[in-house]
């Protein structure tokens, strides 16, 4: 049966006839003094497999419980541990609120080389009442069993030392097993508040 509204066919023959968009919301997790926020395929309606070739995470006003800690991502590549080996690069730009320091640079102490302990996405978060970090991370073809799994992220953050930092990271999970889970944690302490949203980007 077709669905026709105002002479426009909305849906017919098992599919929509009108554009409903290619960025599909999958899941929103809201932090509340949370030790981690975890997206695991097949759990709590999370889809993180070959359904979509590209996945996007949006981070909205994440607030740390402990000052000067980092937001990390960890990937699950089989088994139950979030310990996929990752290699990354990271660079930043920074501006101090007092306007007496600004720079760009490669962040050699914030990158990872074959690390299994997590990937830093947003570094040195402040915990003032109005301080937070937001941003996005793209994950490409996590279900591939042939290639490493690339990701890209960008996070502005209000740094604990009263800086704006922009953190740019790119890297890959150096595994050929499918990634079926993604976990976000702080380097120490809880994620006090904020949301992380997972979207799938459909094939054209």
């Amino acid at each position, binding site marked *: 049966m077709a669905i026709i*509204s*105002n002479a426009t066919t909305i849906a017919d023959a098992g599919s*929509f006839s009108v554009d*409903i968009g290619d960025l599909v919301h999958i899941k929103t997790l809201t932090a509340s003094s949370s030790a981690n926020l975890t997206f695991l395929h097949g759990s709590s309606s999370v889809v993180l497999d070959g359904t979509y070739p590209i996945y996007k995470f949006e981070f909205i006003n994440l607030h740390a419980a402990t000052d000067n800690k980092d937001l990390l991502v960890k990937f699950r590549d089989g088994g139950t541990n979030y310990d996929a080996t990752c290699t990354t690069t990271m660079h930043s730009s920074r501006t101090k609120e007092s306007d007496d320091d600004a720079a760009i640079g490669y962040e050699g102490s914030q990158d990872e080389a074959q690390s299994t302990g997590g990937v830093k996405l947003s570094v040195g978060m402040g915990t003032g009442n109005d301080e937070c970090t937001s941003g996005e991370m793209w994950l490409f073809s996590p279900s591939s069993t042939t290639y490493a799994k690339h990701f890209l992220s960008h996070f502005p953050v209000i740094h604990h030392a009263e800086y*704006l930092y*922009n953190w740019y990271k790119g890297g890959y999970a150096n595994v050929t097993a499918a990634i079926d889970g993604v976990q976000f944690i702080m380097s120490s302490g809880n994620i006090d508040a904020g949301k992380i949203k997972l979207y799938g980007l459909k094939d054209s």
Partner: protein
Amino acid sequence: MAVISNTTTIIDAGAISPATAGSMNLIKSITASSSGTITFTHGDNGVIFDGTYDVYVFKFINLHPQNENVDFHFQVDTGTNSNFNQPIVSGATIPYHNEADNASGLDYGTDMSQVGTAFQGLLDNASPTGNDSNGGGSLTFYSPSSDTFVKLFAAQMFGQGHGDYFAAYKTSGYVNTATALTKVRFKYAGGNIDSGEIKLYGVKG
């Protein structure tokens, strides 16, 4: 006939309700035509810029200035204020390469970084006025209606800089206020926005 499920209107008047359509919903598109400014104000002309969405994305398509060698920039305001002078802390990185192939590099975007209340640069000395020259990109606001946190934004723009350069402009920062934002204004530092489109999307979920 409307299709209503569990008191939610799914389809009506020949269209899927924005609330139930895809996750990235077009809210408003404004086309420049020798325009001094382009302003998106919540509640005006169908513009939504409040807590309806957590994330808002502006897309800039083929922006073309009236004057050569001018910055394209934005400011925001709160409530019914219209001074567009909110405090901003920002930083920028600019990789560039010229058409003559004798200059390239990565710079800190000093002119696009500020601790102040000026309009925030998105394109620096950009877009010569040649008929084929233009700038574009996107600007994302995270939770602009928050009454708790500062308002983080991130932009990725690109364009032909003055002197036949291509440059990518990565600018991010925050509006240093805990008051909800209600409007965003775009303009060039001098002269009109000759042509181009600015589209506002809300990302739901």
